[in-house]
């Protein structure tokens, strides 16, 4: 199993006392799975995403990623995990303004210490896989449309060949049609390239594009089911 979570608990200390964001969540996700984590706001899905994305560590419990326990690592060790194993796609894209699509997509490889020509070549491959047409590669990120920006962000998540792609409400800022194109891109990446994709969302409609849906509420996993009526965008063959 690529991801093994046992009894993940996260407690935040606030001024008033303690807030329990996650109460002993346990689940496994295998290589090549497309999983949606679904729940309303305040359910703890963002906290779970931060832990899965090695941005944060659980208060209790263990998290094995590719067989390595990463629940007790230091900040810089977590940075290394993120650099090598995780790709993020955010709701608000978080691209560098006034930088080209190509430079944005290549950014993670800079921190991996790759030479410039090599990382631009990899970024071109990733942009191709994310479906951004070649004539947009030289455009500055603030000259792109929302859908195009999210494709650049997906390319950036792909470029370091990660074990997991974590997408946090990736369609939240997009209209339905553009959102579907992005979801289709994820489905293609999952089916054709065998990428593990974890989609965090509060919308059932979006979650239904995944193979499996983990429902979370008040910090607890209340349901973990195989998605039987899976939506497929444009009737693409998966």
């Amino acid at each position, binding site marked *: 199993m690529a991801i093994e979570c046992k009894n993940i608990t996260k407690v935040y200390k606030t001024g008033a006392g303690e807030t329990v964001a996650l109460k002993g969540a346990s689940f496994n996700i295998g290589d090549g799975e497309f999983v949606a984590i679904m729940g309303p706001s305040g359910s703890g899905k963002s906290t779970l995403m*931060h832990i899965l*994305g090695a*941005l*944060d560590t659980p208060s209790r419990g263990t998290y094995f990623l590719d067989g390595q326990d990463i629940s007790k690592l230091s*900040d*810089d060790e977590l*940075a*290394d995990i*993120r*650099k*090598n194993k995780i790709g*993020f796609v*955010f709701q608000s894209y*978080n691209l*560098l*303004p*006034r*930088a080209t699509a190509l430079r944005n997509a290549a*950014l*993670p490889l*800079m*921190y*991996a*210490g790759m030479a*410039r020509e090599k990382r631009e070549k990899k970024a071109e491959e990733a942009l191709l896989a994310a479906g951004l047409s070649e004539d947009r590669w030289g455009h500055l990120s603030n000259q792109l449309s929302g859908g195009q920006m999210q494709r650049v962000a997906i390319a*950036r998540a792909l470029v*370091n060949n990660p074990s997991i792609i974590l997408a946090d409400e990736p369609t939240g800022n997009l209209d339905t049609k553009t959102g579907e194109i992005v979801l289709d891109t994820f489905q293609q990446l999952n089916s054709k390239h065998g990428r593990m994709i974890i989609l965090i969302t509060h919308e059932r409609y979006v979650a239904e594009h995944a193979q499996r849906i983990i429902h979370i509420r008040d910090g607890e996993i209340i349901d973990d089911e195989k998605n039987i009526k899976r939506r497929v965008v444009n009737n693409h063959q998966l």
Partner: protein
Amino acid sequence: MSVSDIFRETFSAVTVNKARSGLTILGIVIGIGSVIAMVSIGQGAQSSIEESIQSIGSNLIMVMPGFQRGVGVQVSSGRGSAQTLTQADADAIQQEITLAKATAPEISRRYQVTAKGKNTNTSVLGTVAAYTEVRNVQIGAGVFISDQNIRSLSKVAVLGPTTRDDLFGEGVDPIGQTIRINKVDFKVIGVAESKGGTGFSNQDDVIFIPLSTAQRFLAGDNYVTTISVAAANANEMATVQQQITDLLLLRHNIANPQLADFQVLNQQDIVQTASSVTDTMTILLASIAGISLIVGGIGIMNMMLTTVTERTREIGLRKAIGAKKRDISAQFLAEAVMLTFLGGFAGIVLGALAAFLVSRFAGVATKVSLLSIVLAFGVSAAIGIIFGFYPARRAAGLNPIEALRYE
């Protein structure tokens, strides 16, 4: 993250907002510029003072009369009016001190001088032929006083260029004309070349006459006001100075050197005194300018803190994709250093330009030294590091989750 990556990231960050970057570095530009300009003016003044002291003569030692300090009684008479040095002292120095290349006693006093109805008040200097050698006097026209003139008490005079201009008019050849000093007629036999004397001691406003003539017809005694001695070479200055002191103490029957009735001044001492004055001035000017550098540095820090806040989400993103603390802090530190470095470079250009304009239009000599340029670059880099450190540390310490959520 390689050095060239850091440089590229930094360069694009600095050039994104050119107006703001430009205004931020203005403080550094002005600070470095004024340090460069002030130091160059100070050093220019120093070298011009040194040059003018050097032009008095080379390897020069001057013996001047001083008052004798009686025990317990403070009698102070103005130096120069004391009459303790004689022609015989000068002759003794000439004969007994072998390391002295040439000796020129002189007697100098101001007189009203007239020629053809014009008159001027100038310094009349009775001296000997060796004076030209000891004090670097060049003769422009005619001849200088000869030993023959001394022996025969000739009433001849050599004019300084300024005195010639005052008495006869600029460019007029006065040789063969007569001038009257203190009711005694002198025949002009030569004109000295200009030494470019500056300020209060104009070395060009002078009349040279034979020492013997001056003693007999003007002063009426055998005393001299200064004995100038040229040492054979620069290394022997101290030795010669000591030998002259010993010789004169012996001749004047003074056992305690503290009670000497004369002073032996080394040219080097005069240069050092003048240098220490200009050094102090330079340090003073530079430290006033240095304060504006600190102000500029605070401006950089302010701008960097604003940048860190503005780019919180970018920092969060960079951390999310694998940037470590030191990657982030290196990037922001590099930004601060690049800003101050650009400021330093512009400041050096501005300072050099200011120094050039000052020397061009204000007539003050300036000298932009390599040391001050190297120092300016060093200081601006140091300011970047010092004032960039705190903002960079703040950026590096941001929590990626909170940074990504920042609105």
